[in-house]
């Protein structure tokens, strides 16, 4: 830190020179329906209950559309359609199955911008992310898994395998279409059919994906979309003819699902919460680390199960690093998700905003020191300024509970052993990060950090070829890579 920045308080005091002109992504060409039905057996059908719920834009509170609410009868119809489609799907030549999936990947790729805009509208994430992260990854997942469909005999080291049947898949609101792709792609590649339930606050991109399935003439019933809230999800998970349940969401709901299907013989994979430690050593390249920490916690407003929400800094560099972090946080642009300059978008829902506020309050009450980036928040919609807590100890709620928002808790350590001890002192084990210039130390840490994914000198990187998933109460099973296929087959021997 330079002397000048100490006196002015920030490295980046450029007056009004940070101002950017608005750069809105045009949305008028993206046609929204006023009402969306369920997608069952290749057709859009009205829900048995006749009930619909509204989906709103969290950045403006504008009602975007009304969406069908599936009940048990609808779920049953979707499962029946999937069962029938699955029988035909496994009878197809594997290379033909692959070609259908490649075709789907291509069609989604062609419609990427439209889907990115919808994602930002419905979910509140910056267009920069939906356009440059979510959609490219969606396409990559579909394309990657398409190629597995006719190579599965090579995937399991010579062991015999078979598809499971109908997979019931329940996904969250933080990466709506990406989670849909993570679930649908491996399931189809392995010869299963799916019934997918998107989150109730972000159903639109999955329903547009359904339209694409129709357009490319994917066999009807192979992909079914049943929208609704928790009761719809519960009906799907506990349906007798669903042989596989895949869930991404909170640890609490994961626990309920695991408990509800106990004794049923259903195969289960869970990708649940996290409280990732991001460990920075004094010998790290600090400016790179700052970028990694910022991306680790403020990417997607912190609505990320693997967010680096616990920063563990070596004491010798803590002061310097925290000053750099605050400087960098001052430059984050919070606002309209459809503005191409926006770094941090809207909080996904009012309920989530309340959760974040509650935990931040607890942090203040328990004695941690709060600092929020000075930024102007829009009057309408759900917003939260990027926030950092210092003076956090492992017993604070903000160090133990998943906030799922743009809130970073900073702890310090003196030795690598202490860093490992603190990092692993959590019921979660999804991801972790380590920053050091010493290669051997990064591997020493990577071996000891108890997490399914470890990012060394990087953070929040995803790829269809790289297995992702947690240990401990962050769930079980992997998504992506060869390991991810295990979730959708029964393997012998």
């Amino acid at each position: 830190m330079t002397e000048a920045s100490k006196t002015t308080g920030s490295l980046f005091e450029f007056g009004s020179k940070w101002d950017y002109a608005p750069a809105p992504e045009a949305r008028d060409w993206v046609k929204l329906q006023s009402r969306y039905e369920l997608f069952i057996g290749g057709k859009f059908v009205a829900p048995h209950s006749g009930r619909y719920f509204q989906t709103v834009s969290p950045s403006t509170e504008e009602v975007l559309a009304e969406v069908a609410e599936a009940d048990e009868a609808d779920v049953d119809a979707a499962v029946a359609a999937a069962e029938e489609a699955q029988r035909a799907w496994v009878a197809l030549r594997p290379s033909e199955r692959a070609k259908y999936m490649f075709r789907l990947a291509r069609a989604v790729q062609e419609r990427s911008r439209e889907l990115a805009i919808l994602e930002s509208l419905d979910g509140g994430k910056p267009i920069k992310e939906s356009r440059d992260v979510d959609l490219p990854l969606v396409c990559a997942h579909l394309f990657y898994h398409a190629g597995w469909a006719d190579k599965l005999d090579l995937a399991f080291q010579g062991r015999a395998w078979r598809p499971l049947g109908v997979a019931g898949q329940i996904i969250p609101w933080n990466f709506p279409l990406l989670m849909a792709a993570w679930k649908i792609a491996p399931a189809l590649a392995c010869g299963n059919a799916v019934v997918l339930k998107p989150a109730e606050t972000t159903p639109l991109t999955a329903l547009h994906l359904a339209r694409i399935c129709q357009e490319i003439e994917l066999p009807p019933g192979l992909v079914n979309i049943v929208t609704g809230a928790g009761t719809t999800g519960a009906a799907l998970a506990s349906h007798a003819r669903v042989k596989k349940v895949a869930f991404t969401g909170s640890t609490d709901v994961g626990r309920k699902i695991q408990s509800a299907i106990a004794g049923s013989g259903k195969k289960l994979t869970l990708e649940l919460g996290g409280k990732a430690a991001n460990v920075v050593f004094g010998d790290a390249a600090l400016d790179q680390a700052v970028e990694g920490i910022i991306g680790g916690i403020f990417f997607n407003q912190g609505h990320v199960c693997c967010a680096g929400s616990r920063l563990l800094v070596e004491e010798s560099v803590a002061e310097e690093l925290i000053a750099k972090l605050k400087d960098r946080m001052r430059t984050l642009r919070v606002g309209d998700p459809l503005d191409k300059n926006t770094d941090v978008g809207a909080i996904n829902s009012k309920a989530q905003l309340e959760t974040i506020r509650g935990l931040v309050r607890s942090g203040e009450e328990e004695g941690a020191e709060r600092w929020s980036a000075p930024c102007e928040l829009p009057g309408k919609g759900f917003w939260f300024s990027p926030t950092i807590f210092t003076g956090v100890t492992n017993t604070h709620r903000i160090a133990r509970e998943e906030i799922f928002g743009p809130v970073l808790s900073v702890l310090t350590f003196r030795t690598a052993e202490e860093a490992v001890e603190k990092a692993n002192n959590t019921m979660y084990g999804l991801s972790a990060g380590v920053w050091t210039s010493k290669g051997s130390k990064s591997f020493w840490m990577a071996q000891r950090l108890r997490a399914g994914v470890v990012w060394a000198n990087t953070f929040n990187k995803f790829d269809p070829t790289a297995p992702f998933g947690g240990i401990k109460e962050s769930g079980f099973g992997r998504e992506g890579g060869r390991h991810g296929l295990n979730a959708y087959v029964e393997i012998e021997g």
Partner: protein
Amino acid sequence: MSDAHHDAQARLGVAKTYKFYVGGAFIRPESGRTYPVTSTIDSADAHHVNAPRASRKDLREAVRTAAGAWKGWAERTATNRGQIVYRIAEMLEARRGELHTQLVRAGATAADAEIEIDTSIDRCVYYAGFSDKFQALLSSSNPTGGPHFVFTVPESMGVVAVVAPEEAPLLGLLSMLLPALVSGNVVVAVTSECRPLPGLVLGEILATSDVPAGVVNIVSGVSAELAGELAKHREVAALHAASAEASVRAEVERLGAGSIKRVRTEGAAFAGELGSAGSQGLSHIERWLEPKTIWHPVAI
């Protein structure tokens, strides 16, 4: 005199008190409780044996002991773990006489007991040879779309609890224990409830097989009760439980959900299939491993 018991020259056999094997030591149940193991077969030492009955506290102690042994076991070289598992085979072979007696006493025919012992020993040899190979089969180098070096490697989970089936008391227990053990996990095992002695004798064999203290811990008792406790225990990472009762299996799975435990249950058919081709293999090891994906940028 025809009755040996009244022969003044006859020698009285020395009966053994069976104990748990925990932390490398042979210990009695903390509660002092035992339960009778009866046999239809006469045997040299006794007609009636008291087996130790584990309490919740005994289990907690065993889990704590196992957890403490995990780091050392997981950090041993893969080759060394393989040699130790092979040593178990050698010790089983040397103790086959006693194992045979125990299996026959537990109701097996002499021929079936031979087969169970042979299969058990061969299973040890099979898994011993896997200790330094499953890593290559279950790892991957991931060609991600960016300048990163990314690989996925299997790691052990920690404490894997095993509840053996009632039938095949030796082979059942070993078939569940070995794949978890060879891959670096530590084990808390519950023997067959009504045929606990082969499992308890296995503890004596492990004690002389260079298996470090605490890496495998064996107790006996009321299996359904102990399985439930293990399912609830937060330090138990995974549970593999056999029970012929569907209600017990469902309850164990339900209780395991409290800590998002990896739970696998086996039904009545399990013990009968322990000689089949699918009863050992890579999948049995893979179950008790967690893939860890490690990313590092590639740059100058």
